Structure formats: C-alpha cells, structure tokens
C-alpha cells in the first residue's frame, strides 16, 4: 500500500515537472503583444509553457551582449536584422539548415532582401519574422502646389520637385535626409539605386566606382543647395506645416503620423523610392533565432514554424501592424486592398539589406563620416570615396 502510494506520488511529480518551458526574449511592441500568440501556441501544444521576457529596445543590445558573455540565454529570441552579423559572429546562433530540410519553411516563402539577413557564410541562422522597408512619405497637397500631382518617380524628378519646393520661400525645404550620426542604412539605398555596391563578388571594395560616387554627389547636393535642412526642426511639425514635405522612413511612421499629426489626414501618402537604375530600398525588421545553448531546440523550432504559418503572420499583422515577412500573406485582402500597404508590398520586391558581416557597424560609421564630410564640403565626392575605400580596406584587414 505504502509502496503504491510512493509510486503514485513519483508519477505525479514526473508529470508535473514534465511541463516544458520555452523561454523567449522579445522587444518593444512585439513583447507587449506576443502573449496573444503564445497562448494560442500553448493551446496547440499541451504541456508547453511559453515564458516571454520583455526587453525595452534601448536595453536590448546590452542585455543580449551580457547574456552571451555569461551564457545565460533563452531558447529563442527576436533579433533585429542588423544585429544578426555581430551576434552571429560570436557563434551563439543555431544553424537551421537541418531543421529546414524537414519543414514547410523554405527560403522562397520570404522576400529576397529579408532572407539575405538570415544567411551568413553559407549557413542559415534565423527565420524572418516581420520586415520593415523604407519608402517615400510625401504631402500630396504641397506637391500639387508646385505642379506635381504624383510622387516624384525618378532621381531627376525628386531633385526637380525638391528645388521647386525649396523655392517657396525662406525656411522652406524640399525633403529631409540624415546628415549626421550613423546613416549607412539611409544612404545605401541611393547607392543601390545608382547601380553601385560596396563589394564585388570577389570581395573587392567598389566604393570608388562612378555609381557610388554619383550616389554621394546626389545625396550631398540636396544639402549644398539647401534643399534638405541641416539640423533642427521636428520631423512631424515640419511635415504637418509643409516646410519639409518629403522624407524617407519605415512602416512605423504610418501610425505615428496618424497619432501625432492627425490634422493632415488625407493630405499625405507614400510612394516607392525614386528610380535611377533601380528603385531599391533598405529592408530591415526582425528575425527569430535559436540559441545553441538551448535545451529545447525542437520546441523552439516548432514555435518558429507556428509564427511563420501564413494565417498566424496575418493575425500578427492585425495585432501590431508590422509587415509580414511571408510573401503569400501580402495577397490577402487585408493587405492587398490597403493603398498604403500596397506600396510597402511593392517596395519589398526591390529591397536589399547591407552586407551581413560583423564589421558592418564600423563600415556604416565610415560611410557616414565620409558622406558627412562631403555634405559639409570638407571633401569632394571623389576624394571622399577614395578615403572611404582606404577606411573599409583597413577595417576588413583585421
């Protein structure tokens, strides 16, 4: 009798502790809402408990870094695309090719530029969750005043409309561009549009190519001719007042404009990047990564599969309105019938991410520094490109 009781107790205990816990680190708005999806996942997988730890974006970088240094990591985490390379180089992400072989997930489900962010040195180290892509935001009414009933389509048109907009008077500008800090991600689209690149297939630095120099010149000219403001202002106020009626930004701006400056509702829209040789934009967003310290890798992969399923991608879009990484979802009426979302969907087809190498942050710093020197007329575009080439070669040498 007593033995039976003990056996029963042991059995109960085993069942009670067999509940598997999946730990997830998530950031920002995602972290606040992820529990909705987690509950659904737990319903589908009895005996699994999902623990979400919310980390504010401002602390996320340090948190992951210290987590890696102390090897105190969750099973699964949300990872910004530009953080893939540096943290990936530390060798903490699980290589996912073996999982992909047995799964419905494959690279063709995702946008090319987005998939680019999960591959490094021939391996796959993450699965895209949601994307963000930069497009042109513009004031339809203000552009109409200077004779544009459509968004500028080409580089020439963008320059032309900026010039006309700036001529409206003192303190009036054509568009807003970044000129200080680190703006590699904002500048690179112009290089891609001009047909330029950082490296060729052999890894040679190609920033002195005429296409790259053309991009520097085009970018800096907006500042030289005072078509883009240097310093100051407030993006929302200036957009609302029409002082700066064009800027480039990501999908988060849509809801921010609606919240912060509702008075211009119906007077603004979004458009594709202007075309030179191409209309390429920057694609970012977040991926899912599994840490190789995890003891629940199969479960973590199951969660990734769950989040990648088109119906769940759509549900997630409805919750936080971040852009789905799975292409198929863009055909659903919720996105296809939304005029603003349609532009984002179209732009995603022509969007790149910067090279996925751990030195990118340093290279982006160098690019920003040299372009800034051109903007402030400390260098010619040609000499800046030469200097940049030396910088990048020095960075890559180590």
């Amino acid at each position, binding site marked *: 009798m007593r033995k039976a009781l003990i056996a029963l107790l042991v059995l109960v205990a085993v069942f009670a502790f067999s509940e598997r816990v999946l730990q997830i680190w998530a950031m920002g708005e995602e972290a606040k809402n992820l529990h909705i999806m987690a509950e659904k996942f737990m319903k589908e997988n009895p005996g699994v408990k999902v623990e979400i730890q919310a980390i504010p974006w401002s602390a996320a970088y340090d948190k992951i870094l210290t987590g890696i*240094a102390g090897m105190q990591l969750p099973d699964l985490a949300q990872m910004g695309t530009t953080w893939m390379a540096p943290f990936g180089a530390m*060798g903490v992400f699980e290589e996912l090719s073996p999982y992909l072989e047995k799964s419905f997930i494959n690279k063709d489900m995702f946008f090319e530029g987005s998939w680019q962010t999960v591959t490094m040195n021939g391996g796959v180290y993450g699965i895209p969750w949601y994307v963000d892509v930069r497009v042109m935001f513009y004031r339809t009414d203000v552009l109409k005043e200077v004779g544009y009933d459509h968004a500028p389509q080409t580089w020439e048109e963008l320059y032309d409309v900026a010039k006309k907009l700036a001529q409206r008077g003192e303190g009036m500008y054509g568009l807003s561009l970044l000129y200080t800090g680190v703006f590699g991600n904002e500048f690179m689209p112009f290089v891609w549009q001009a047909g330029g690149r950082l490296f060729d297939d052999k890894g040679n630095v190609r920033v002195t190519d005429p296409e790259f120099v053309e991009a520097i010149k085009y970018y800096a000219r907006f500042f030289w001719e005072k078509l883009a403001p*240097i310093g*100051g*202002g*407030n993006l929302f106020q200036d957009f609302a007042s029409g002082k700066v009626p064009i800027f480039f930004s990501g999908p988060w701006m849509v809801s921010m404009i609606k919240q912060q400056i509702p008075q211009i509702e119906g007077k603004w829209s979004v458009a594709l990047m202007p075309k030179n040789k191409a209309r390429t934009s920057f694609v970012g967003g977040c991926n899912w990564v599994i840490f190789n310290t995890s003891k629940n890798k199969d479960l973590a992969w199951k969660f990734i599969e769950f989040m990648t399923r088109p119906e769940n991608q759509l549900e997630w879009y409805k919750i936080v309105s971040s852009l789905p990484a799975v292409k198929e979802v863009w055909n659903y009426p919720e996105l296809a019938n939304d005029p603003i979302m349609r532009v984002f969907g179209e732009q995603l087809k022509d969007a790149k991410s910067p090279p996925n190498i751990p030195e990118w*942050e340093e290279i982006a710093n160098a690019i920003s520094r040299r372009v800034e020197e051109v903007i402030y007329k400390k260098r010619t575009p040609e000499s800046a490109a030469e200097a940049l080439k030396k910088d990048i070669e020095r960075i890559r040498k180590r």
Partner: protein
Amino acid sequence: MKKAPSRGLLLVGRIDEMRTNTLWIFVFIGPALILLLIFLIIPIFASLYLSLTDFNVFALTDWSRAKFVGFRNFYELFQDELFWKALFNTFYCLIVAMPVTVTLSLLNAVLLNREQTRFKNFFKICFFLPFVTNTVAIAIVWSWILNPSYGILNWFLGLFGIKGPNWLGDPKWAMPSIIMLVVWKAVGYNTLLLLAGLQSIPDFLYEAAELDGATSWQKFWYITLPMLRPTMLFITTMMIIGYLQLFEEPYMLTQGGPLNSTLSVVLYLYRQGFKFFKLGYASSIAVVLFLMIAALTLLRLKLSKQD
C-alpha cells in the same frame, strides 16, 4: 628586575590582541575588499592586458581566439586620425569648461554667502537640481532648447534681433553647446562645495581686514581666495577627472557629430568597444586616458604644493 617578565607577558598579550584585531578587521572590510577586487582591481588589470591583445567580436565567446599583439593597438591608436580629433575635442571641453565652471560657481557661492541674499535655500535647490537630474532627461530637454527653428534659446536671441546659430548642426557651435550643458550641470555641485568652503573662513579675518581699511575687493582677493585654496584644489582636481571622461552629453545630443566635432575620447572608446566589439583597441584607449588623467591630476597636486 621583577617587572621584566610581566613586561614580556604584556607584549605577548598585545600581539595576541593585535592578531585578533587584524582578523576582525578583515572580517569587517573583507566583503567590501572582495567586491572591490572583483569589480575594480581585476577589471583594471584585465583591461591593461586586453590592450595588448586583438580581442574582438570573435573572441567574446571563446577567449582563446584573442591573440597577444604587443603594442600594436597603441601604434595604431597614435596613427588614428579620429582618436586625435577626440583628444582635441576632450581638451577643448576641459580647457573651456573648467575656468567657466569655477568662475560661475564662485560667483554663485559668494552671492549665496552674503547676509543680504534672500531665499537662500530656494536658490541652493535651483543650482543643485541639474546635478541630481538624470543626464538623459536633461539631454532631451536641451535638444529642444537648442533646436534652431523651434528652440527657446534661439527664440530668446531673436527678441534682441540676433539670429541664433544652428547649435547642434554646425560643427563650430556643437562643442560650445555641449560645454554649455556640461557647465550648467556642474555649477550647482561646485557652488555648494565652495559655499561650504566660504562658510569655514573665520569672520575675524574679515573684521581685522576691515579695521585696516581693506576694500571688499581686497578682502576677496587677499582673504577669500587664499582661504578657499583647499576647496579649489579639490574641485579642480575632480573637474579634470570628470571633464576628461566627457561622454553622456555628446552621446545623447550629437553622437559625436557633426563632422566628429563633439567626439570625445570616452565616446570613441565606447564606439570601438561596444559598437564594433574591438575590446582590445578600446582598452588601449582606456589605458591612454587613464595615464592622461593620472598625469594631469599629479601635476595639479604638484602645482598646489608649490604655492
């Protein structure tokens, strides 16, 4: 003769007592010492060693990948244009901000020390508030104040018909703007220290001077200033140490820009170490900064001894 053995016994007892005392001393300060060792002493030596390696992003999870490279980091550092720029900017801040801070703090302290001044505590709180406020919050507010088109500072200058500059967007004005913020933040703390110094000057010195017919300017020059010397030594030394580590203000307001005109040594160190993960290189910057601070502090102490 009889006293000799008892003296010996006494001595033995003393030593015993001392032994137990040392034991107790270690029991009490031990925890603090261990913490100090783990979080200060060991990191200092680790960083000294790191500065001689090429510790980078690949070595973070596997320390064996960091190679010993001797003084290569320092060699590269002294050829690094941006490091020199950062050094220049940091000294620019120190050389301008220090005298301004001292002058303003002294002025405030003297005014607060006058018997006629009213609402002393109110002013003390006002002066001290910037010092205890979070720099991040301060920086956000200042970025609004300094905004060239909507900022209150340029609006104020506009009242006098002056067109204010593009404070943080102009490479010439960015550093002065940072210095403005740094000084404003430091004045309160130094005012209180100087005020304490002023209050410890005995009244009879002034009374004696008055009997001799000294003007108030003479009293200030020949009594107040010399008597404040120990306080001055303290605040200037702390200022050298503090200003050479300029970081938060440019980090929050300009990230070192425009044209790296507000890049400070510590900001550059942060960028190299925690953005580019070149911890070896960053450590060599830290070592150079440490040597500079140590040298300047010693120089300051030496100068004060000569007086």
